[in-house]
């Protein structure tokens, strides 16, 4: 087969494949970090609660918070109005 043709296919498939694989890998590690982060938040809040008798700090269930944050539509903060 023509060397150019092979080179072309290899480059295209190789690049897309590599990109796809790295993308999934990045996604997995991000997912892991997000899980760890929400645990940290809960633990930190827990430390605060146990030090203070009585009133509890309202920390939401981590997964619920994740779901809410992810499903949330609209911008995180109030949208700025465009200037006149």
């Amino acid at each position: 087969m023509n060397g150019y043709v092979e080179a072309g296919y290899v480059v295209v498939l190789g690049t897309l494949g590599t990109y796809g694989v790295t993308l999934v890998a990045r996604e997995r590690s991000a997912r892991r970090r997000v899980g760890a982060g929400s645990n940290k938040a809960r633990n930190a809040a827990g430390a605060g609660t146990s030090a203070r008798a009585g009133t509890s700090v309202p920390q939401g269930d981590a997964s619920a918070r994740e779901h809410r944050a992810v499903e949330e539509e609209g911008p995180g903060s109030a949208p700025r109005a465009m200037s006149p």
Partner: protein
Amino acid sequence: MLRDAVLVAGKDLRIEVRSRVGLNQIGPFAIAVLLLFGLALGPDRQVLAPASAGLFWVAVLLSTILAVQRSYAIESADAARDGLRLSGLDPAGIFLGKASAVAAQLLVLEAALTIGVALLYGARLSGALVLVGACVAGTLGLAAVGTLYGVVASGLRVRETLLPLLFLPVVAPVLLAATKAWDEALAGTPGRAGGWLDVLVVFAVLYVAIGIVAFGPLLEDG
């Protein structure tokens, strides 16, 4: 809006007259670019003269970047955006004012570069109307895009590297059309430049309009 524009343009130009940075730095830079092109493409005028239009406009494009960066640098150092925002002036007016000031400086620069190109590359100037027309329309487009991206980049630490990257690809059509228009003029067939001048005018009108609308929101951010 227009009153604010005149105010801002006047201020910018007055600062330039007093500080002469354009004259002392951007001008020599442009001349240096012409010289370096000359060195790169060889002493043979047969090669340089036909390339004059393109080299001229590349020099103009690069100088625009400097002029725009200067335009934002003259606002108080890092608080440039805040200063402009709090001034209470109409953002569209600020845009027009700054773009006009940049355009004015560039036009002066282009006059000098035209002489430079004639001298250094042996370009035979003809079709003056087309040459001037292309300069005016092209420069307006360049100044508009530059001022727009300038405000995007002005607050950022990466502004020096980001502005050229954002600016240059977008103004590629200006480079193309202006060079072609100049080519026709210099070749003695200015009549054929009509279409290219149209492109320049459309581009300028489009991006001035976009600037008037988009400058405000861009100014608010950051």
